[in-house]
């Protein structure tokens, strides 16, 4: 173990359910390892700071996504349902259904929710920084975000990242 604290800097730029996991998993774990952590939320990533997270997942944008059912007998659950792209892209409500299935599967398998990981990240001392420029462009108010979120810009992130041991753009 080093005496000086390690540091993790992340830019979270995506707001879909699948892309929401990596920044929060890494931030919460690094904070649990006593690292200094800052996550800079920009563009679609900014939506992950809202009080209610409405992140969805899109099978048509992710053709390799395994489509499995979170209920029924084991053999049924293991089936990887073939989903042609014309179907996933054009069937109304398909993303909504896929999102519900993914959330249910994650819960059943013992995976934390994004909200839980976010709370644990903050509790363990991770800094969550909202990109002020994106907030202005998207019309998000600071009150839309959960408590504990800082406002910042590129210079804020770069100053922190300059001393980081690990820097990631997600």
């Amino acid at each position, binding site marked *: *173990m080093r005496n000086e604290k*390690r540091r993790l800097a992340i830019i979270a730029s995506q707001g879909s359910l699948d892309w929401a996991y990596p920044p929060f*998993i890494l931030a*919460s*774990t690094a904070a*649990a*390892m*006593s*690292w200094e952590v800052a996550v800079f939320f920009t563009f679609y990533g900014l939506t992950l700071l809202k009080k209610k997270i409405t992140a969805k997942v899109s099978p048509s944008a992710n053709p390799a996504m395994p489509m499995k059912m979170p209920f029924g007998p084991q053999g049924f659950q293991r089936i990887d349902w073939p989903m042609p792209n014309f179907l996933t892209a054009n069937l109304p409500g398909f993303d909504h259904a896929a999102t519900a299935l993914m959330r249910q599967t994650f819960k059943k*398998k*013992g*995976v*934390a929710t994004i909200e839980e*990981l976010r709370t*644990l990240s903050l509790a*363990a001392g991770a800094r969550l920084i909202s990109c002020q420029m994106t907030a202005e462009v998207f019309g998000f108010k600071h009150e839309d975000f959960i408590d504990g979120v800082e406002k910042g810009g590129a210079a804020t992130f770069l100053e922190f990242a300059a001393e980081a041991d690990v820097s990631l753009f997600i």
Partner: protein
Amino acid sequence: MSDTAFDQELDCRGLLCPLPILKAKQAVDGMAAGQVLRMLATDPGSVSDMQAWTRQTGHELLGHQEGDGVHTYYIRKS
């Protein structure tokens, strides 16, 4: 190892990464230095993760055993 004395127990069976680590951190935060945490987990990834976590935090991984898919860890708080 199974008769190792411990001060607190944490059940992380059925939880996947990173929850066992996050819950271990919370448990250890509430303990005094030198106390031992016994933790149960079924996540196979926890074997490597618990080693990394204890190395990074300075807590001591006193031991690890596996049986019937359940991993038991003994961690002494630094």
